[in-house]
């Protein structure tokens, strides 16, 4: 029997842009849904042309000059989808979108508050057109509330959601991580919320709208800190690399420049094993360090001892050595090492993709694996508007000449329309 994919037969219109929302779309697409990435030439996914530009060999043009199809940040997270470049601000574009929504199971969008309504494709309109439709709105702060119109990137939400406060050097209150963890969290949250909602629709026969707040999704990841604050009345302190219950627990320098290993010792027996690995068995009976309390009180001395030892080793060798002694450790790994990692290689985590305009590239795969119905990247990230004819002809039964006409009118297309400054036709909304 051919491998049946879990979301086979589900069609999703994915208007997601940037990071979080397209990631969710890819989760559904890999799992077998027909996911149509809906962009427009006037407003393509901003990562196609804006922000950090990452092109193969730093060359935007390539053979065909279509730099918008060569952006690494788009190609990494829009695999397995189809692309329709449809101008939603054009009345015909809007009408075609509604026709597509009638034939779809779900719509995913992360525009700013009010954009969908202004385009005439808000929840009320779509729900009326297709009462069984599920829509997920992946908002910065949700669809309601006094700050719902505020615009945020992942780093803003990291601060508003409390992740930044808990993350930083304990001795420097100003230090603040800036990574944008709420993006992958928001995408993963949207991915499961829509799948749950599709089940609900099967049970009730009713479509539903998911109003998702990425700020809240970020706080949920550290939700125990909220309960802790409620329980103790104390704001939980920032603890850097210290893991509760582990002593020591820190990053230690290794041979070379900016090379490190993380070590986390959770009990006295593990400490003894570390002393053995360090060939310093006498330390195991040293009263200053033999107990958890001793290692807590003499943390600086412990860290110095370990750091002097780790600095003599190449980090990957040390990683293996420590693990062979059953000691919890991990080398701080850079992207080159991550791509080479023997474990991830053996697990087949990296997926090789023949990109349409970028040649052969490798991207991260899925962190979950189904034993009987495995799934992953099915097709490369589509070029802008690559499936205009297939979608409008196939789903809406438009003739080639009708689609040609739409192309001539600029309702659909395959190339971004840029302003004189090279920016986008419309301001990011």
């Amino acid at each position: 029997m051919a491998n049946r994919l879990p979301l086979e037969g589900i069609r999703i219109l994915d208007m997601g842009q940037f990071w979080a929302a397209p990631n969710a779309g890819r989760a559904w697409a890999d799992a077998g849904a027909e996911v149509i990435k809906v962009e427009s030439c006037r407003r393509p996914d901003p990562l196609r042309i804006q922000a950090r530009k990452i092109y193969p060999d730093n060359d935007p043009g390539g053979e065909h000059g279509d730099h918008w199809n060569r952006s690494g940040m788009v190609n990494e997270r829009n695999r397995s989808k189809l692309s329709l470049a449809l101008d939603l601000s054009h009345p015909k574009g809007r009408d075609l979108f509604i026709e597509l929504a009638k034939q779809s199971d779900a719509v995913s969008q992360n525009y700013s508050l009010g954009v969908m309504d202004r385009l005439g494709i808000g929840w009320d309109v779509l729900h009326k057109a297709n009462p069984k439709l599920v829509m997920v709105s992946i908002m910065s702060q949700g669809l309601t509330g006094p700050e719902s119109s505020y615009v945020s990137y992942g780093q803003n939400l990291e601060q508003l959601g409390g992740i930044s406060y808990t993350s930083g050097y304990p001795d420097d209150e100003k230090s603040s991580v800036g990574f944008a963890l709420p993006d992958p969290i928001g995408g993963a949250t949207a991915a499961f919320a829509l799948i749950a909602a599709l089940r609900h629709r099967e049970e009730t026969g009713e479509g539903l709208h998911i109003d998702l707040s990425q700020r809240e999704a970020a706080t949920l990841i550290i939700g125990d800190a909220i309960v802790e604050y409620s329980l103790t009345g104390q704001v939980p302190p920032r603890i850097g690399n210290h893991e509760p219950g582990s002593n020591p627990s820190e990053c230690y320098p290794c041979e070379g420049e900016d090379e490190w290993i993380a070590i986390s010792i959770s009990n006295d027996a593990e400490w003894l094993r570390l002393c053995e690995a360090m060939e310093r068995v006498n330390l195991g009976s040293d009263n200053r360090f033999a107990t958890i309390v001793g290692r807590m009180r003499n943390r600086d001395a412990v860290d110095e001892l370990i750091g002097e030892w780790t600095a003599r080793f190449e980090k990957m060798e040390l990683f293996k050595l420590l693990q062979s002694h059953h000691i919890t450790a991990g080398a701080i790994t850079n992207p080159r090492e991550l791509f080479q990692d023997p474990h991830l290689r053996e697990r087949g985590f990296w997926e090789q993709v023949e990109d349409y305009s970028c040649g052969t590239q490798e991207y991260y795969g899925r962190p979950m694996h189904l034993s009987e119905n495995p799934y992953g990247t099915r097709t490369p990230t589509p070029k802008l508007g690559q499936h205009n004819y297939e979608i409008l002809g196939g789903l809406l039964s438009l003739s080639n000449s009708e689609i040609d006409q739409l192309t001539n009118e600029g309702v659909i297309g395959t190339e971004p329309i840029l302003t004189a400054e090279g920016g986008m036709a419309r301001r990011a909304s």
Partner: protein
Amino acid sequence: MSGPLDGLTIVEGGHGIPAAYCTQIMGVLGANVIKIEPPEGDETRRLGPFPNDAPDRESSALFLYLNRNKRSVTLDLDTPSGQDLFRSIVKRADAVVENFAPGYCDQRNISYAALSDEHDSLVMSSITPFGQNGPYRDWHATEMTLFAIGGLMNIVGDINREPLKFGGSPALHVAGINSFTATMLAMHLAETAGIGQHVDVSVLEGLGASHFQDLVDYEYHRTVIRRGDMRTPIPTSDGFISFQVQAHVYNDFRRLILGPDAADDDRDAASAIQAQQSGEMDLEILTWSLEKTKLEAYRLGQEAHVPAAYLADMSDIMASPQLQAREFFVEIEHPKAGTLTYPGFPAKLTGSDCRFEPAPLLGQHTHEVISEFTDLSAAEIGELQAAGVL
């Protein structure tokens, strides 16, 4: 109203965060979750801080948060009788979500192979640090070491200091979310096609799939990105704020700081922003920010269309007018820990309810669940309890 996961029965096994977080969300959305704990309880019950610094296995904030909406059954899985009861419960469940160490279930005859023998369409979702195979399978890991190996510590922190992990345990929570998605997809195949399967969820791979740009930077042009100078937030009268100034809002940002009459910068936006980031406007920004509270500065920034944020601690989060307006927080009364404030659910689904019941006491539902899921008599259950199996 009802929840999307109404009618699904999920059995949870293991210790700590990933499986518990996954099934906690499932419970919020309506699933019937049965948590199997060893007689001494899930290890998170031991993690403080506790009220008045008095350790109490019913009052761990982490446990209370991770285990809402569940029933607790204590089972000694090191005994054949305990293993047999586990299999009996699973036989009538839709899925098992567990994060035992690899090999643990095989040794106890409760592996996927053993369980699915008696239940064709069973879904078993196993969350482990490194996954079910590969050279690191049995290696030891914590949140921090996984952040290290997963390549995220390489880019978090200050280049002049040691790399940093994130606070809390986001890697383990994200693994729980990934397990939710995969388990739901697998249960969909079970419900519609009768296919059961084993789902292998790797915490490390969840991190590998959470990179923003450094992986493509390497793949596309062999550039290895490292940590930078940590971006320092801007002080206000009562805390810190920050702005994400992009090209299209740069002149809005200038007018926010310099006043409404400030002329547009005539440089191109990219170099103007670069100059601003290297300190060109620092004095003006400080003059502006130090007179304001962090909330005022945040609002003024946002009203000027500049993405702004304040560094929120837990008290700020609970006081947030936005989160309160959305009724994000819920009060839950627990028989031992009392009434506490919890985060609710980050999404509102029209026509659907979220459920927020307190975490169970250790073994609170053992008798109830064993009676419901097996044909054992009250006397037999009492015998098992006397023997320490339950």
